[in-house]
């Protein structure tokens, strides 16, 4: 029986792993193809099924005809994601500390309601906000600008920062804050000198979530920008609708997800250090 179980287990893990890797492998081979490798039906192995070429990869950096400029959208995505994440992290961490340590009361509204308000923003379907954002950014002349997008992204990422950090702060014993205050720290000094230095793991998690969700957004970038500013996901998708060869498509797609795969490795490293896994067992 245990034998059978092990076979099933290995099969399951291998099977799922294959499923996970499959799209990347496909994109990888496809990126080296030319017309012959695509139009006659699916092909898989370079040199065996088709003649590989680096045309797609060379074209990524905006040289020659039929090429795509990936660098510009990549940079734009970086700027927008990092700025919005940084601001959301700062404002969100401050708010989370307040919600964790102090008692707020405005009529019937208390801490739990406020936390719920922050976190529940995630329920908001993007489509509900798309139209008003479209109209309002237009009103302020912020359509198709980096600033406009950053503002919108802050609204998306702030709740994430608050959600992660409130939980994290709640796990830091209050006695630490108290000791700092007795030693002469005002609440702000307590936060800055004592709590923050001990909050690195939480900040990292919140930061990663913000960056990933920000980088991966398509919808708002799609509806709120056109030509001046283009974020990476939008750039890739717009290739989809035009008559772009599959190989360029695959190459661009791989380039756009590569940074995140690197981040995934770093995150796993960090998780294993025990900081996030929770259990030091």
């Amino acid at each position, binding site marked *: 029986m245990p034998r059978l179980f092990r076979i099933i287990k290995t099969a399951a893990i291998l099977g799922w792993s294959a499923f996970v890797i499959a799209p990347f492998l496909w994109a990888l081979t496809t990126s080296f193809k030319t017309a012959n490798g695509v139009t006659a039906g*699916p092909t898989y192995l370079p040199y065996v099924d088709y003649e590989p070429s680096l045309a797609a990869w060379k074209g990524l950096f905006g040289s020659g005809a039929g090429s795509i400029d990936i660098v510009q959208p990549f940079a734009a995505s970086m700027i927008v994601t990092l700025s919005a994440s940084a601001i959301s992290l700062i*404002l969100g961490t401050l708010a989370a500390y307040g919600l964790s*340590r102090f008692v*707020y009361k405005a009529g019937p509204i208390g801490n739990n309601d406020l936390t719920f308000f922050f976190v529940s923003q995630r329920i908001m379907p993007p489509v509900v906000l*798309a139209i008003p954002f479209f109209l309002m950014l237009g009103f302020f002349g912020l359509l198709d600008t980096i600033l406009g997008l950053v503002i919108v992204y*802050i*609204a998306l990422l702030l709740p994430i920062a608050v959600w992660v950090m409130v939980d994290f702060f709640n796990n830091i014993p209050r006695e630490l804050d108290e000791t700092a205050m007795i030693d002469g720290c005002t609440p702000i000094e307590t936060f800055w000198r004592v709590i923050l230095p001990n909050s690195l793991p939480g900040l990292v998690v919140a930061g990663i979530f913000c960056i990933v969700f920000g980088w991966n957004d398509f919808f708002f970038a799609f509806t709120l920008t056109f030509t001046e500013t283009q974020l990476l996901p939008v750039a890739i998708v717009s290739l989809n609708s035009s008559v772009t060869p599959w190989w360029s*498509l695959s190459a661009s797609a791989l380039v756009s997800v590569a940074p995140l795969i690197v981040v995934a490795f770093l995150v796993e490293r960090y998780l294993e250090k025990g900081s996030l896994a929770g259990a030091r067992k």
Partner: protein
Amino acid sequence: MYGLSRYKLFFLLPGLLTLLAIILFPLIFTIRVSFSGWDAASPGLNFIGGGNYGRIFSDARFWESLVRLGFIATACVLLEYVIAFALALLVWHQVRLRRLTRVLFLIPMMTTPVVMAVIWRTIFHESLGPANDLMQFLGIGNVAWLTSAGWATVVVILVDVWQWTPFMFLLLMAGLLSLPKEPFLAAAIDGAGPIRTFFNVTFPAMAPISAGAVIIRLIEASKIMETIYVVTSGGPGTATETSSYYIFIRGLRDFQIGYAAALSITYLVIMIVLLTIIAKLLARYLVKSGA
């Protein structure tokens, strides 16, 4: 404690006010717009009372999209939960395996869903994509992935499962690792096999975490739109058109802004009510089962 008030405000207000400013105005604005007849032909904020809302009642396409959304979201979350739990259970005890699989499983979650959707589209291309090649290899023959209603739905679900099972996997894994060891030792001493242990110890102990993970995923899954936009464009026909996609079409493609605004508000209210009910039900179930 004395002297805290200004500090309290210093911490909370910047974030709270920013969020309110960015979210509240658009929301109120949307409500106002929903009472207007703004569309491509007559742009501008007039007032037509509840006209848009009345139209929603008889808009079969909207209600169908809701049902479709319910089906797709539930299917996705259920599959993701089962697969993730199974994988987590298989890998939980062995550290090295855990690390390797954790990286592997982490990757889909971190990638840009839209970009992956572009790749999936090429995979499921009915004549040039490897999916049908595989089907032929297995002796099943060509499948009309994107041109038949049923299969298109399957594709959408499959893509979502690929993308988000890792998320469930991480949450459930963290949960499993944080369980106290004693009940498991007790079960082992009582001679319980793996299946009995699962149903009597593991699953009940994981109930709160399972509920949390399911709720979070449900909330996110209900917003599904980008995948559909890229892979199926809501089709064939309206076979994979979820509510978000429908509202998007009405608002930003047909430019019937007033009506789309009304749809948005209605959709938002329905979502909040439904999700709150589900959350409360799950919470009560947890309390009853003594979690």
